[in-house]
């Protein structure tokens, strides 16, 4: 019984962790090409989910809503490139980071201005009745989410492995001036990657939206993704998954087994503290690229 409960918590944690990874992947994409933590990822997620729900609520079929939302995300990606990234080329990362905060205001505002501030339910048609496997409770919805995340990671990993684009991405993140000098089209790279981040945001937004309802708080799920990022490494897709699993498991086990001794509610920070402890051993995360510098 005790062992079974432990397994349940662990499995539950791992599956929650995958949900975090889903959000983290969006961050990784942007970080890989600009060395910047994109704080607008949460806003993108909100925007995507809100657009999708509002469209379906207005009677559009699901496929059309998805296509339209994707189009919108592409538009946003292109706009961000044109209006923000291009003029800020070759600026220090902190400046870009602040700019993404500005962008998040705009996107958040626009999302709610367009679609209102109401809370929407989102039903993806996936039942979430309790499912017992060998006496251990598993959520069917989480399994589905894990499958989606797995597929996404696989696709992105293959993409980076079998195209040379990944190399260009890293080059841009390393040195934008040099990237310009060797003829990389930063505009195209950035538009592409922000669009991709928008699509990841849509997927994450739909899955999280089905759990939380589609509302402003959706943008707060990024806070769950940040410890995942530092743990796995900002620039590693695989790291996002592994980090997510670790964070999810640590968080849940800590809450259940340590929480009661300190009054509970430690989930909010335990992941950060754990990630921090881990970073002290590996300063660039599990799979993150090590800082390269010499004199």
């Amino acid at each position, binding site marked *: 019984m005790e062992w079974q409960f432990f397994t349940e918590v662990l499995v539950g944690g791992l599956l929650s962790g995958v949900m975090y990874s889903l959000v983290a992947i969006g961050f990784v994409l942007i970080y890989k090409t600009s060395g910047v933590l994109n704080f607008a990822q949460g806003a993108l997620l909100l925007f995507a989910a809100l657009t999708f729900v509002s469209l379906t609520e207005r009677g559009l079929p699901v496929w059309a809503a998805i296509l339209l939302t994707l189009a919108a995300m592409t538009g946003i990606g292109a706009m961000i490139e044109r209006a923000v990234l291009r003029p800020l080329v070759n600026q220090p990362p902190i400046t870009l980071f602040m700019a993404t905060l500005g962008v998040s205001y705009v996107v958040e505002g626009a999302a709610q201005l367009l679609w209102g501030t109401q809370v929407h339910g989102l039903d993806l048609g996936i039942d979430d009745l309790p499912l017992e496997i060998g006496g251990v409770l598993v959520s069917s919805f989480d399994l589905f989410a894990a499958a989606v995340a797995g597929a996404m990671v696989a696709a992105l990993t293959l993409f980076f492995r079998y195209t040379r684009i990944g*190399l260009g991405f890293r080059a841009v993140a390393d*040195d934008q*001036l040099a990237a310009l000098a060797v003829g990389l089209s930063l505009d195209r790279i950035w538009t592409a990657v922000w669009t991709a981040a928008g699509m990841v945001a849509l997927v994450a937004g739909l899955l999280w939206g089905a759990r939380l309802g589609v509302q402003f708080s959706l943008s707060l799920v990024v806070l769950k993704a940040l410890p995942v990022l530092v743990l796995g490494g900002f620039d590693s897709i695989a790291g996002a998954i592994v980090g997510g699993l670790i964070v999810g498991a640590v968080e849940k086990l800590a809450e259940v087994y340590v929480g009661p001794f300190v009054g509970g509610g430690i989930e909010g920070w335990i992941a950060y503290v754990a990630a921090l402890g881990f970073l002290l051993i590996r300063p660039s995360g599990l799979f993150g690229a090590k800082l390269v510098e010499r004199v």
Partner: protein
Amino acid sequence: MTIHEVLLSLDGVEATYNHAIRALSGVSLTVRTGEIVALLGANGAGKTTALKALSGLLPAERGQIAAGTIVYDGGDVTRRSPAELVRAGLVQVLEGRHCFRSLTVEDNLIVGGQVQGLGRAALRPELERIYTLFPRLRDRRKTAAGLTSGGEQQMTAIGRALMARPRLLVLDEPSMGLAPLVVEGIFTALKRLNREEGLSILVAEQNSTVALRHADRASVLETGRTVLDGPAADLRERDDIKAFYLGFGVGGPAAPAAA
């Protein structure tokens, strides 16, 4: 050697940084197809600024072209993105190396070749070409460029530019930090490319001895202005001009006054 039409021309270019610091106040310069032009000048004369201006990199440094025209291959460079210029064959080796530090040396070269859009197989001989020119890079090809020695980084930067198969190669202080044999090797190789493939070259150099020995023509900048433009041979041979350039009698370019 065949010298044809004008490939690049700067005319009365003025440039500022941040709309405030004026770095160029009248630079004129031409490079014809198949020509090697040396751009000389003391510290802070504006060589780097001029080169960045002509390859469209000034905006990325928060610099602006305030006046004048820059025409490459019949088109205004300010109208084209740096990437388009590279695709049109105008490739620059930046001052201060600027390698992609977390990429391996070989990946640096590959990124340089990406504008050519070559496949994996076609890339091989291109890489070989660079490794023949810089054997040292072959040994270090799996090391992150950021960890290699200063000279190795300089070789990587030059090799990376050559991977794009430029028509006009712009070099900003290529000799910096390189062993004499290597400098000689580079200039010899460039000269050969120039002869055999008609590669045009614009090179900014402090090491005027080497530069003048290989250049067809030379331009001298002083405090952001072109003060001399002529056949390299003249500068090479005429001591009065050399002395002039070296700073005698022109109020020490080494320590110009501050703003």
